[in-house]
C-alpha cells in the first residue's frame, strides 16, 4: 500500500508486475480524489519515456506525460498539430493545465475530453507498453470501452507516447469548444478537424465531435461530403446539416437540451472544418497556419 514516484520506466513496470493487478500508474493524478484509490500507485510523471515533444521519423511524437500547459505552449505542436495546442489551451484552468497530462486525458476516457478529441482528429496513435515490455500501437479512438472507461488497463500497461503524422504543406487543423463559461468549464460540445488539400479539392479530412458517444466520434458522412471538391457557401450549409443529423445526441439537466446540443454539433463542425481548410490554404501559401 504505497505511492511511489519513479523516473525509471523499468521500475514502474516492475511495481505493476509485483502488485499483480492491485497497482495503477498515475501521472497528473488529478482524478485520484474523485475516483477510488488502488492500494499501489506508481507516479510516472517524471519518466523520460513519457516526456518530450519531438519529431521522430516523419511523426510528431508527444509524451503521454506532457501536460496540457506544455502542449499548448510548445512551438512544435503549434506548428505541426495546431488543433492539439488549441485543445490544450482551453482545458479547465491554468492550474489544471499545469498538472493534467495528455495521456491522463485519454485514459480518463471522459467523453468530452478536449485533448483526446484533437488527437483523434489528428489521427494520433497511442504507444502502449505492457508488463512484458512489449510495445503496441492503437488509434486513440480505439481506447474507449465505455463512458469514462478506457480499454487501457492501468494496472498492467502504460501509455507512453502519441504519434501523429507530420502534416504536409497542404494541411491544416483546428479545434473549437463551446462552453458555458470562458474558464473552469466542461464543454457542451467540442470539435476538431484535420484537412489536407490537393489542388482545388479536399483530399482527406478527419472531423471529430464530442460528447456524443463514449469516444470522440468521427463525422463520416460529413467527411464524405467534403471529399473531392472545394467547399462553397452551399457546402458549408450542408456540412452543418449533415453533421447535426449524423450523430445521436443526449441532453442533460445540468448542461443543455438534446436539441440545442444537436444544433451546436452542426455549427461547430462547420466552423472547425472551415477553419482547418483556411489554415491548409494559408499553410500552402507559406503562412504559419495559425
Amino acid at each position, binding site marked *: 500500500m504505497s*505511492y511511489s514516484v519513479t523516473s525509471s520506466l523499468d521500475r514502474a513496470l516492475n511495481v505493476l508486475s509485483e502488485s499483480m493487478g492491485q497497482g495503477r500508474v498515475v501521472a497528473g493524478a488529478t482524478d485520484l480524489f474523485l475516483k477510488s484509490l488502488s492500494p499501489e500507485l506508481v507516479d510516472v510523471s517524471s519518466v523520460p519515456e513519457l516526456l518530450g515533444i519531438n519529431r521522430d521519423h516523419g511523426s510528431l511524437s508527444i509524451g503521454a506525460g506532457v501536460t496540457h500547459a506544455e502542449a499548448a505552449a510548445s512551438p512544435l505542436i503549434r506548428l505541426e498539430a495546431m488543433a492539439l495546442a488549441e485543445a490544450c489551451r482551453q482545458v479547465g484552468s*491554468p492550474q489544471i493545465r499545469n*498538472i493534467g497530462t495528455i495521456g491522463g486525458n485519454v485514459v480518463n476516457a471522459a467523453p468530452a475530453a478536449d485533448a483526446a478529441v484533437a488527437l483523434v482528429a489528428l489521427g494520433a496513435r497511442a504507444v502502449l507498453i505492457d508488463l512484458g515490455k512489449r510495445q503496441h500501437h492503437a488509434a486513440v479512438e480505439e481506447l474507449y470501452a465505455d463512458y469514462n472507461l478506457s480499454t487501457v488497463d492501468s494496472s498492467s500497461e502504460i501509455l507512453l507516447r502519441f504519434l501523429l503524422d507530420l502534416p504536409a504543406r497542404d494541411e491544416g487543423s483546428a479545434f473549437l469548444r463551446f462552453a458555458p463559461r470562458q474558464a*473552469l468549464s466542461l464543454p457542451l460540445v467540442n470539435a476538431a478537424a484535420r484537412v489536407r488539400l490537393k489542388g482545388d479539392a479536399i483530399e482527406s479530412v478527419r472531423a471529430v465531435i464530442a460528447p456524443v458517444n463514449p469516444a470522440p466520434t468521427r463525422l463520416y458522412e460529413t467527411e464524405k461530403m467534403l471529399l473531392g471538391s472545394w467547399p462553397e457557401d452551399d457546402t458549408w450549409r450542408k456540412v452543418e446539416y449533415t453533421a447535426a443529423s449524423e450523430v445521436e445526441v443526449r441532453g442533460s439537466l445540468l448542461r443543455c437540451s438534446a436539441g440545442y446540443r444537436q444544433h451546436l454539433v452542426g455549427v461547430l463542425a462547420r466552423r472547425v472544418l472551415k477553419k482547418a481548410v483556411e489554415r491548409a490554404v494559408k499553410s500552402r501559401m507559406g503562412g504559419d497556419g495559425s
Partner: protein
Amino acid sequence: MKEQVISFELNREKVEIYADPALSLLRLLRSRFNLIGTKEGCGRGDCGVCTVLLDGRAVNSCLIPAGKVEGRKVLTIEGVTREGLEKGAKVHPVQQAFIDKGAIQCGFCTPGMIMSAYALLRDKPFPSPEEVREAISGNLCRCSGYKQIEEAILEAAKAITEQEGKW
C-alpha cells in the same frame, strides 16, 4: 493509504514528513505543517483558492496527492511572505500591490490569487492585461469582480522590474 516518508522542499527548506501519500497536498500543508494560509474552497479544483506552486507552476493543491511532491519544490503564500521579509520589505511586491490597489476584500481568494500572480510574473515579467486575466482564470473571486486584482498584478510587474534583480 499507509503512511510513508515524503521528502521535498517546502518554501525553500528541505523537509521530511511521515504522512499518508493519498492525503491531498492541501490537507498536508494545513494540518501537518500548520500552514493555514492556503485555503480550501471546494476540494475539487473548481475554485483555485488552494493554489500553490509545484516546481514553479501554479496547481490546485487539493488535487495533488502528498506522495506526488516527493523530490519536488512546493511554494506557498507563507513562502512568498517570508521572501518579502528576508529581502527587507514588509511583504513581497505582489502582496504589496494587492494591498495598494484595493485588490483584497474578504481575502479568501487572495493567497491563491497571489500564488497565480507570482507564477505568472516569474514566467512573464511583462504580462499584458489579457495574459493577467488568463493567469487568474482558475482563481474565483466573488467580492471584487477581478478588476483591481488585474491592476494589482500589472502594478506588481512594474514594481518588480523597477527593483531590478531584487525579486
